[in-house]
């Protein structure tokens, strides 16, 4: 009823609709219907390979042997910063984003990924770290083979 603390029936129906949207959206996005949720949230697989990326003074230092992985295998990226916050983002050659994480100084920043398409991928910092941030773009540093 309007005017007291009891909800009007129309408002209650609206609340039920809100609850339904909440449930549907969250169930779907927690589920493997968002593909990477399967390993980021649920299965936590042991990675087939692990690569360390060291970042300092606007420079990303990649492993000496390069980053070469197979499509379909689980790969771990471990990024560390020696000064400020950066980001670690993997992009396709056309500039579209595959995945990313923040790189906090003083912490090991780990993410596991499974590439599904062979090709070469770029890495760029996805967090502002000072005026030279935009230049932190490394082309073709990840190679994914079939």
């Amino acid at each position: 009823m309007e005017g007291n603390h009891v909800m009007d029936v129309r408002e209650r129906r609206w609340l039920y609709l809100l609850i339904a949207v909440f449930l549907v959206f969250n169930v779907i996005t927690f589920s493997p219907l968002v593909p990477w949720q399967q390993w980021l949230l649920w299965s936590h697989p042991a990675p087939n390979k692990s690569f360390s990326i060291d970042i300092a003074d606007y420079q990303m230092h990649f492993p000496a042997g390069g980053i070469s992985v197979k499509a379909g295998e689980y790969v771990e990226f471990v990024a560390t910063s020696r000064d400020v916050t950066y980001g670690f983002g993997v992009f396709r050659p056309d500039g579209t984003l595959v995945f990313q994480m923040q790189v906090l100084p003083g912490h090991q920043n780990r993410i596991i990924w499974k590439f599904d398409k062979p090709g070469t991928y770029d890495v760029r910092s996805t967090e502002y770290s000072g005026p030279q941030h935009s230049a932190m773009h490394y082309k073709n540093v990840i190679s994914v083979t079939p």
Partner: protein
Amino acid sequence: MIRLGWTEKWTLRFAVVGLLCLAVAGFEGTLMRIDQYNADALRGMEALLNNIRPVAQAPTQAEVFYSMLSAHPIVGIYGFAYMLVMGAFYFLVPFLLQKEIRHKILVPINFWLQIIGVAICWSSGFFLMFNALYTLYWPLPVAYDRVPVLGSIGFTIGAAIIMINILLFSYNIFSTVVSKNGTQQYSIPAFIRSAFGIPRLLKRLGREDKGAPNMDYNGMPVFIVAVGRGSIDTVINAFVLLTAGALILVFGLAKLLNITLDYTAIDALIYKNWFWWGLDMVADGNVLMYTAGVWYLLIPLLVGRRLFGENVVRTVIMVDLLVSMGVWSHHLLADQPQPMAMRIISGQLITWGEFFTMGLTIFASMMTIWLARPIKLTAPLKFVLGSIFGFIMGGSAGLIQANTGLNVVFHNTQWVIALHAHAMLLGGLSCLLFAVVYAVIPMLTKLEIRSQRLVDLHFWLWVPGTVLMTMVMSRAGSLGMLRRTIYDASTYTPYTGVAIIGALLIAAGFVVFLVNIIATLGLANVLSLFLPESWFTRQVREAAA
């Protein structure tokens, strides 16, 4: 010449300065987009401006861009939005409560301190090249190989002045609400207990204190409830940002004195949690509660019907206050060291609390309008509807990105800043403030808004311009275009080009709005707000002679 009272004059002064800040923020935003579209387009202007910058070396294009990007939100939020909110609340709170502002001396102090604080922050960017952005992620603001130490100190002092000023403003609003004709009616702690619903809880437990202030089931106007509950977030935000500022200031002063402090003593993750906890009191707290309050105030006034479900919305505002205290982890979804449980609970699920509070707020607002049919679509009501549309658009985008799965591809992209932040600010908040201006000017001056056609033109330039700009950039963001990143000619250049067209529509809408407001008030009246009254009296006398 119209005769304006003291309060009315100050409200209009806040509004004029706030709107000037909106113009500056819009100009900055457009310059940055032009710079993204064509890196050479602004070289001439930059070279000219470098002549007045007191720095030894001409700054790089990136330094200029990021300095502007650091100043831009301060001018937009604290220059535009807060100035208008202060002006509006200083009129509406006494008007609704039928009593005077408790500490009148604080009104001009708030006005000037806000201008000074924003001007210092802006100058620290423009002249001293402060470029650590508003996020101030530790230890960037004290990494003096990237951020000039004087700029860092200046920006922090400016921000501290703003925060102290906001605390003074909130204190004045609190004490006005709790005072009764000059004599304290309630204490502020009692008022705060009421904001958190403690008296209501005690009543449920059979221990009701009938003398305590109560926001839930007595006659206190629902707008005042929203202002009271929202201002708690305002105070917490100001306090937290002050602590971050003090830390940065200590490092800056030590640097000037050649004392080396170890920045690794501060954990970047804990700092980030603290900072976002405080900042979200504004982004996810007071802005939603103040907005809800203004809808609850304006809509019944404009449609001539009492608010639908008034007692329910009082509870909704309290839930909003509680939710705002637990949502901050949605800014840390891409931070892998942040515990996953925090990311899921605080970052995603509690953040969805805003879906329910805003969902019910919008329902109550729309039902009030629906049940009042037939209604006259007046200027403020149009912009109220525009603001509801803006909040739906920006809020939906926010919920999509505040998601442990989807944030992997949305974090720090143009999606976040365009379809979430700018849709909220330009669609939601700005439309709401325009609605307030259109509603309050006739109340203050007894003048009707000059041209309804210009109101329509303002609306149909501003809202579609906002939709165009934010939608096209959100599309670029959903593909992977980053925010805070300068792109050379890239896949994303055409998106930026279309966004500039959207920005120009917004700018045209703003010019139309200003023309209409100045035509309504009269240029002489606008100028009289800032020039000595004796000068104007003399001019009028001479003109008459």
